[in-house]
């Protein structure tokens, strides 16, 4: 497997959706290619960082508005069902 071929199926490898036979070949390549190893590791960290990124806090005024709106909707639904 060449570096370019590895790059083309990087998603499947990182997402664990690669065919087992190809995966073996992929690992063999990584064992012998430092740059590809680092790129794969960088990609994993990029995804982890963006996904786990500290979520934004809600503005207190928005939190109050959100909770009030949902409570109101909850009550309306309950009243409708009781009718």
């Amino acid at each position: 497997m060449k570096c370019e071929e590895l790059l083309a199926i990087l998603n499947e490898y990182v997402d664990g959706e690669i065919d087992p036979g190809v995966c073996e070949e992929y690992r063999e390549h990584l064992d012998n290619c430092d740059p590809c190893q680092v790129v794969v590791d960088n990609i994993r960290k990029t995804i982890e960082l963006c996904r786990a990124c500290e979520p934004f806090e809600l503005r207190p005024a928005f939190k109050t508005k959100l909770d009030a709106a949902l409570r109101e909707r909850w009550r309306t639904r309950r009243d409708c069902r009781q009718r």
Partner: protein
Amino acid sequence: MPDDGRLVERALHGELEAFEELVRRHERQVLALARRMLRNEADAEDVTQEAFASALDHLEKFRGETSFRSWLMTIVSHAALKVLRKKNSLPTVPLDEESLDGLPRPEFIADWREGPTSLLERKETMRHIQEALDELSENYRLVFLLRDVGELSIRETAGLLGLTENNVKVRLLRARLALREKLTRVFGDSTARIAPHAHGGTEETA
């Protein structure tokens, strides 16, 4: 602490507090995804409220086949895309299949100085991530956000954006490579950089 599935059951049995706990658990992530998709504070808050209201209305449809978080992320993505469509901010759907031809080769290759957990403790990390996402074209940004931040499947992402699954895969790969390049230039250890020419790409290495 009860898991999300248990809280859904309790909410379906009429316990408002259980639903409010679900909102508390997920509100920041829902707002974060809406903000990143819409890049407008007021729109993101409206969409967050709409998403939770819709989740409440359809709670009995949550079957627990996916996580509650994933179910919510699909709802908020759908709501955010509706706003983008109204504003005509969605990129046009390509008629042809996109290909991996001309895939950009990684240039700045280096281990990161710190791992994601420790980077998250730094304030400037958020800014760097936002800047890297903002520099992506809308085509790539939305696919990356839905798939890698919202954790939607390829099929769901394709369905929501009106793309083929193949086009989603191609765009996702290009987005990941572009973000890796940008973030590695910021977080990579330049003293341990591996020169791009060493990454040849044509020689057999295994």
